[in-house]
């Protein structure tokens, strides 16, 4: 059975995504659960990058992981009921050794120079999609304004 390297890579990324989503279910600490959730979403975005769909990769990583994921991690860290360390500090030693070996091997190897990046988003930027993005941004601002108004009304009702 001849399996291409891209299929193997897809299988590996999908496997990591499923394992990290399983870790979300199994871990008891919300902080670690949110970290594993972010890892799952990065893997999902990685599959988009594997199929050369960089604009969606950027959207998922920036909006979902970069904005919502970080807010979720911050909330989980704030409302952490029983702060306990699930990972031993001793794991730092193999991590440092691996990072050193990796850094040194990259330093001594003659890597090819990077070529100019061809940004693929250009062909997607049409007036229709710009209008769509504008409307959706307006929708999110409206949603946030309504939540803000609800909070202000509750404050006024209390005082």
């Amino acid at each position, binding site marked *: 059975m001849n399996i291409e390297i891209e299929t193997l890579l897809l299988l590996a990324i999908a496997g990591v995504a*499923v394992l990290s989503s399983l870790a*979300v279910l199994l871990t008891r600490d919300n902080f670690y659960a949110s970290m594993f959730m972010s890892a799952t979403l990065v893997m999902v975005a990685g599959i988009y990058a594997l199929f050369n769909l960089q604009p969606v990769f950027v959207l998922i990583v920036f909006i979902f992981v970069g904005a919502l994921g970080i807010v*979720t991690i911050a909330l989980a860290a704030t409302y952490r009921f029983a702060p306990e360390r699930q990972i031993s500090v001793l794991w730092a030693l193999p991590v440092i050794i691996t990072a050193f070996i990796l850094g040194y091997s990259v330093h001594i190897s003659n890597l090819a120079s990077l070529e100019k990046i061809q940004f693929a988003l250009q062909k*997607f930027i049409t007036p229709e999609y710009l209008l769509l993005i504008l409307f959706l941004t307006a929708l999110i601002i409206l949603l946030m304004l309504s939540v803000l108004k609800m909070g202000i009304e509750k404050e006024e009702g209390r005082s």
Partner: protein
Amino acid sequence: MQGIELSIIYVTSFAILLMGYFTAISSKDLIRLLIALELMFGAVFMSLIPLFSAISNAAFGIAIITIFTSSGELLVLIAAIVTMDRERKNIYTSSVTIGGDKL
């Protein structure tokens, strides 16, 4: 896109959705529920990938709409969690007493 790649994507998407569902039904606080919902949205994003091989431009539009609307929903849930904490002084799902039907 080959058949094996298509099956890997759909199986992974279903598995992540299932994990998100199990996390949601076993959640005891609203943060866990938020994490479960984000996980389920991740599975939905993944199931969109095969659409790009057939109608790429429309699929990109659908992806943008899905990402923005799900982000809006989750932002409202985050605001609701903070509001509930200010009102009830806790974020347990058991303290949510209104909403839904009794059979």
